[in-house]
């Protein structure tokens, strides 16, 4: 369970942030969040799918990193096994949130359960009551991610309006084991995409969404790569 609190120059003046190039907090995650501006880069390595957030029922975009819950086939003690690392992993344990959407200000929160955030070792966060250059750079990345989350939500809204998302069950048959269903995954339906009217197609272009739609479709090739990886 993650517990997030806002970073505070007084309360956290002696705290430090370590970096973990292995992204060990994702060791047991079979899906990881991805934002729309990352689709093209991620599509060459992972299947991009849509799932419902169990807490809000809202759709979000994810990469599949395993073919069953509790499995991350890209995590390895020798290092991350893909040529792309989603920004949410790089920014962890920091996150930017907008407590008041009207003001537009962001607050940087931290997952206090993470050992990367500690008073002992790592990069200092504050000096003389001010954010260090390191923190400013990390905070900037977190804010960039928060902004791309909004773009992703708009993209998903458009997919829903155009009725392009469909529920798909992946039936997987690992070698020497019984077949099982991976449910709760939503994909872009190629058939429906082909049936869009010219006007609907135009709305995808005007929203700069064509690349993202195609990246998702291309990423489906990675499903077999993922299954391959699971039997190695």
């Amino acid at each position, binding site marked *: 369970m993650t517990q997030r609190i806002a970073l505070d120059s007084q309360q956290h003046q002696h705290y430090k942030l370590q970096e973990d190039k292995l992204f060990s907090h994702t060791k047991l995650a079979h899906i990881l969040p991805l934002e729309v501006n990352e689709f093209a880069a991620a599509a060459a390595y992972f299947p991009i799918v849509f799932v*419902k957030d*169990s*807490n*809000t*029922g*809202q*759709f979000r975009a994810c990469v599949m990193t395993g073919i069953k819950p509790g499995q991350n086939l890209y995590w390895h003690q020798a290092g991350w096994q893909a040529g792309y690392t989603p920004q949410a992993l790089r920014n962890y344990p920091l996150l930017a949130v907008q407590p008041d959407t009207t003001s537009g200000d962001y607050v940087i929160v931290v997952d206090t359960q993470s050992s990367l955030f500690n008073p002992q070792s790592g990069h200092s966060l504050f000096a003389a009551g001010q954010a260090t250059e390191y923190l400013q750079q990390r905070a900037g990345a977190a804010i960039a991610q928060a902004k791309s989350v909004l773009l992703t939500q708009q993209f998903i809204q458009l997919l*829903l309006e155009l009725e392009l*998302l469909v*529920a798909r069950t992946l039936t997987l048959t690992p070698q020497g084991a019984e077949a099982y269903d991976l449910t709760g995954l939503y994909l872009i339906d190629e058939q429906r995409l082909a049936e869009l009217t010219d006007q609907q197609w135009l709305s995808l272009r005007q929203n700069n969404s064509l690349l993202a739609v195609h990246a998702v479709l291309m990423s489906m090739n990675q499903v077999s790569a993922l299954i391959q990886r699971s039997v190695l």
Partner: protein
Amino acid sequence: MLKSTLDEIVIVGGGTAGWLTAAILAKKLNAGKPGSVQITVIESPDIAILGVGEGTWPTMRTTLQTVGVDEGEFMRECDATFKQGAEFVNWQHTPVPGEKHSYFHPLSAVFHSSYDFNLAPYWLQGASDLPYDLAVASQSRICQLGLAPKKITTAAYSALQNYAYHFNALKFAAFMKKHCTEKLSVRFISGNVQQVSLHPCGAIASVSTDSAGEIKADFFVDCTGSKALLLGEALGVPWHGINDIIFNDTALAMQVPYPAPDWPIATHTIATAHEAGWTWDIGLHNRRGVGYVYSSSHSTDERAEQILRQHIGVQSEGLEARKIKLNLGYRQQFWRKNCVAIGMSAAFIEPLEASAIFLIEAAANMLADQFPRSSASLEFVEKKFNDTFKLRWDKSIDFIKLHYCISQRRDTEYWVDNCTDSSIPQSLQQRLAHWRLHPPGKYDFDYAFEPFVLDSYLFVLYGMKFNTDISHNLSSYSDIQSAHQLFAEIDRTTAILQQQLPTHRELLDKVYQYGMPKL
């Protein structure tokens, strides 16, 4: 003379009946498209909507989905909550002071529809230790636990447990009005109808309003409530009273706040029997709607208010009770010439089992599906409509009466009178006589548009401990093993649901915040 094609429909009266009818007609008849009918609603700016009907049936889900309403938005705008059934408290026998007994009538028997395998005869033989309502339906237990019928990830209008809504009827009418005028090309006129003009043939030609002059149309829908301006006053169709069967002709209603913002919200209507009627208790998101509906021949208004305040307790202090006179019965015809009445202008039984809004939906759907675009078809459709709705109202009256007439309560004249044979319709008496020796089966409900079907009757009959003696016919019910398997499956389903479902309030708070996923 009527035109040969009926192209303009005027609905007189807004409210739940007017706007719901407008939405269903507009959607199904493609209003706003070239060549389709034009639909206009005339709503009085002065007449208040009665707005006590706060409970619906699961059919409302299909209705709202069909007319293109966003479920999450509707719930948020109308303070709506999920209704999974009703709990009937103290109906079965006279309660000793301090005691409470009850049974549930849930909206779904989950996967255990009695149509395929009727568990009742096995329950009668003692194949389960639980009361009937808990033995045959997971949903009764889900209601007891205050759990929601679905999860936040469940798509809009889909359900893990069948559900309907409780909502604020005033807000619902306003919400539907907005939806009709903004999205369904329904024309809206604010005005009071002052006069109705007829063609020589007796059909309605036009209505005159104070603000918009004379408005002609080819077809009229009377949604003017119990006044029935068109069908009753102008066309003179008489009212058929039913107060010899159902006695509750008066209601006292109160809006009761929750003691705290995170107070649990009941996911079913609580109907508690009293000395001369019963109280409803409906949990909306921001308050409860509580009211006492009673027989004015069996209770004074003062005594009724005392009962209501006692029932609510200290929370009723300082709250005002609103009195509503109810006219129980139905029009001898619902449709005459080019006019049909929908809502309280057509019929009203009493709030028990929330049949009012359901029958609005049913009437509007049939009107839309059968709409006689050619005036030559009017007469034929009129007859069909009148026949089917007479049957539906009679059957609804039978079912409502069932709740009273098999009670063991005899504490007041009200209950004695309710259980007297002369107050029970013949059709119901005959069936009850049969059910004393045979459990009800699907052949007892063979009409296609039966408003209350087998499962509903079973829940009420055996919730009320109705005695069906099957000792002479045990040989017909020997598949005890299948019965045990089904009872065990219901237990398992309940356990799984109990693990997965959030509390009712938890889900509502999320729906209000995030809406519901489209798929």
